[in-house]
């Protein structure tokens, strides 16, 4: 039989004014297992806590119930108090007789029996409380950042500056990501390279950062504090130690293939760096394009390389490391708008996506920074921009707003006017969305000072007619149909999740929304956390976002990582699920409902009629479990229980509350 002590707080008159303390004490003395009942004016005060501690010693109490304010207010305080008296903190139970009783009922005749019922329920539950210990895990003081775009770079720098070791894994031969492809950034028109390149260099040279470019994460195992990760470093066929980055190899290489960095608008060599400011400035050989790998002869790069850094025998390397925390910053893709037949993308060289058009402004881009038509090399005099191509389109595209297009279209229209002063831009839009510091002003400048015609409506057809593109659209404000003989059309296509995002999500163990963007743990209050402890997200892999937002989120994720790595040990949740494997039928329903991947199947051997039998059951990883209890209800054999909120405890409360009947 437990020895329960009940302590009732007056909370000045907050409780005592509406609950008859004397009557409550009288009733409490009669509850099963109660050996001691006391009261105090302010139980949460130092003296109040001492009263509890003393009583635990004097009356040899092994369970404590306090009738006080809400457990969301002072549960921690009283748990600490009982711990100081030598009890396990989870042997304490709170009856909320203030917020849920004295403050909401005016009539003492009604509030008192309710307070008694609540105390009775708390005592009934307390009798079944077990001592619980939160699991603890040692923290590996090293972080992994997946993705070397601006989000990954910022996060890595912040973690490194806080003094922790961080590895950045980037799939491409260089870090820099999407931002490296941009010419200018809104709304300040900073040159993208001018602000990004210094950061790329800084992160590469930081003593706490290791860059693993041309590499991909292959496997993630373990859990918060101890993720065991396998990373494949793809063979570059260039010795990074010997290479001086002189560039003779790609100058001499005879094999050409479309450049990914230039969105296919220009060619690169088979041995290449994606762009001139690449970090690291070490070329890679693209096996699929290289004449030597395809046909067995050529080797010009090897012959020409002064330090003899070319190594055709190089193999992929697998790196295995343990990390305390992971940031996923894998960025976004652009939707291919070919299925919008009315826009004719892919059928004519002067119909471009926004990012393709952006490359025309860049000095190292496909046109050497001249804004010209790819069909005939002439500067475009009439350019039609179409917004929401694939965004806000639940029929043929994505239902969401891609957020950045209104702003980059305004930017490109301004840049166009600066490069081709007699050019005229037309922007077909549904709504102009410019929420952001300085954004509205910027867009208005485009319309007012740069002669950009904003047409509220959409385009129904684009087709080539002699040397121009015929654009048929409508301006819904005037109710007029519009025909424009355009020189060029720029489609603001939807920003979409990376094609392999679901795969990355599975690999890392985080989930995504219906568009394959990674899910944050809470849409408002946990924007960089995921449901998997120790894994954080930053940047456009979570949803379309612009650079300032991406950087802010990256720094936020870095702070979360630093906070985690600053601990030697992690304390988990004590109220976690537990399974009785002897009764588990291995149906795995619990695994399916667990939002934290805390439940996994294991094979056990059992003795069975003299032999042994192998069967699948589940086990709960208490460091991953958050204690929601979803698994307990789906369990077909009813053999998963939740510590601290067990079936027995809840039923005891129900019984105790219903005892008045």
């Amino acid at each position: 039989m437990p020895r329960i002590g009940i302590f009732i707080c007056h909370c000045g008159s907050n409780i005592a004014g509406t609950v008859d303390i004397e009557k409550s004490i009288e009733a409490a003395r009669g509850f099963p297992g109660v050996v001691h009942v006391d009261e105090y004016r302010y139980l949460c005060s130092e003296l109040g806590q001492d009263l509890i501690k003393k009583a635990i010693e004097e009356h040899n109490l092994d369970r404590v119930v306090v009738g006080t304010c809400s457990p969301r207010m002072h549960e921690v305080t009283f748990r600490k108090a009982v711990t100081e008296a030598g009890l396990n903190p989870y042997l304490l139970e709170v009856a909320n007789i203030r917020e849920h009783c004295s403050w909401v009922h005016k009539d003492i005749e009604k509030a008192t029996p309710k307070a008694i019922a609540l105390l009775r329920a708390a005592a009934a539950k307390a009798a079944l409380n077990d001592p619980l210990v939160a699991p603890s895990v040692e923290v590996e003081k090293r972080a992994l950042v997946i993705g070397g775009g601006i989000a990954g770079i910022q996060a890595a720098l912040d973690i490194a500056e806080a003094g922790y070791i961080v590895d950045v894994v980037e799939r491409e031969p260089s870090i820099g990501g999407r931002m490296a492809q941009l010419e200018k950034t809104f709304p300040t028109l900073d040159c993208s390279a001018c602000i990004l390149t210094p950061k790329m260099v800084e992160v590469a040279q930081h003593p706490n950062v290791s860059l693993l470019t041309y590499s991909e994460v292959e496997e993630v195992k373990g859990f918060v504090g101890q993720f065991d990760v396998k990373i494949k470093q793809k063979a570059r066929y260039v010795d990074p130690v010997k290479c001086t980055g002189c560039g003779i190899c790609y100058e001499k290489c005879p094999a050409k293939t479309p450049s990914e960095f230039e969105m296919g608008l220009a060619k690169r060599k088979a041995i290449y760096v994606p762009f001139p400011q690449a970090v690291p400035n070490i070329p890679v050989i693209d096996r699929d394009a290289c004449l030597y790998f395809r046909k067995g002869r050529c080797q010009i790069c090897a012959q020409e390389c002064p330090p003899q850094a070319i190594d055709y025998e190089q193999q992929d390397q697998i790196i295995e490391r343990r990390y305390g925390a992971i940031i996923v910053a894998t960025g976004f893709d652009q939707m291919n708008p070919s299925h919008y037949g009315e826009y004719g993308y892919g059928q004519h060289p002067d119909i471009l996506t926004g990012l393709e058009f952006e490359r025309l402004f860049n000095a190292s881009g496909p046109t050497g920074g001249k804004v010209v038509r790819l069909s005939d090399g002439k500067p475009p005099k009439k350019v039609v921009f179409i917004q929401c191509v694939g965004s806000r389109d639940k029929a043929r595209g994505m239902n969401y707003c891609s957020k950045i297009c209104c702003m980059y279209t305004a930017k490109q229209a301004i840049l166009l006017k600066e490069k081709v002063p007699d050019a005229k831009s037309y922007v077909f839009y549904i709504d102009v969305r410019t929420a952001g510091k300085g954004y509205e002003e910027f867009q208005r400048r485009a319309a007012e000072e740069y002669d950009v015609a904003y047409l509220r409506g959409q385009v129904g057809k684009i087709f080539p007619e002699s040397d121009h593109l015929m654009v048929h659209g409508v301006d819904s404000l005037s109710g007029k149909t519009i025909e424009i003989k355009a020189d060029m059309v720029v489609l603001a296509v939807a920003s979409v999740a990376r094609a392999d995002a679901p795969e990355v999500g599975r690999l890392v163990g985080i989930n995504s929304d219906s568009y394959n963007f990674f899910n944050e743990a809470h849409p408002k209050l946990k924007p960089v956390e995921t449901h998997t402890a120790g894994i954080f997200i930053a940047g456009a892999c979570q949803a379309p976002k612009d650079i300032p937002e991406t950087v802010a989120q990256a720094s936020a994720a870095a702070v979360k990582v630093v906070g985690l790595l600053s601990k030697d040990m992690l304390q988990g949740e004590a109220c976690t699920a537990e399974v009785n494997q002897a009764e588990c039928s291995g149906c795995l329903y619990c695994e399916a409902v667990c939002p934290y991947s805390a439940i996994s199947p294991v094979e056990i051997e059992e003795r069975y009629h003299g032999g042994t039998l192998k069967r699948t059951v589940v086990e709960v990883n208490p460091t991953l479990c958050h204690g929601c209890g979803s698994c307990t209800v789906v369990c077909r054999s009813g053999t998963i229980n939740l510590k601290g909120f067990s079936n027995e405890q809840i039923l005891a409360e129900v019984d105790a509350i219903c005892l008045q009947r």
Partner: protein
Amino acid sequence: MRYRYFPGCTLKGQAKSMEDTAMAAAAALGIELIELDEWQCCGAVYPLYEDELISLLSPVRTLAAAAGEPLVSLCSACHHVLKRAQELMQRNQDARHKVTDFLEVEYSGEGRVLHFLEVLRDDLGFDKLTEMIKKPLEGRKVAAYYGCLLLRPSKVMQFDDPENPTIMEDLLKTLGAEVVKSPYRTECCGAYLSVTEEGVASDTVARIIDSARQAGAEALITACPLCRYNLENCSREDGKEPIKVYYFSELLAEAMGLPGESTGADGSKEEVAQR
């Protein structure tokens, strides 16, 4: 290859040449088209209001009469109505019960509903058709005109890419013609507006013909008698060389070296191939 065949009214009248040439080609290709024993007009337009069940009686009766065998039509309007009626029978249980109870037939949306072009592309294959081309249409600049009813709504029709269809161009290529692509090949010709608002149809037709002409076409093919009527009768006198309009099956028969004649929507006849 055995199919049940639904001709539709117009193919027994003004568009007889579409039926004749298609039947001749089918026979030569080993495609058996067995006309339904009894059939009625499909209704020409698919009822877009969910309570217009009366208009569904005829197409559903036709669908049920095919008794699960693949059902082929030549006229794009008939095909459109039959295909959509089938989709409704599959999707809307309530409508299905009401219509089939009234008709006293058993039908729950089964059976393939095909346009003859789909048979040529998917069941026979254009590769196979190439072997049967005796008189390729060399040097003939022909543009395909799809119109609306075969392509849209694409989720139901499942005929081809609604914005960038290729089936008719692929057919023309197979027939040896020089394929001309015009941007207005999927735009509406004005349909039944030629009955009430001829001016509107004249505008749409003028755009279609002008753009085909600009692209260099000498002739157009279509699978719809109404499209052909509009293209031939609503084009304005502009002094330019008129563009010939054919049913796809007429050129098919011609390239296969089969006898037949093209019946213009105005009843004028022209021999399309010699014996």
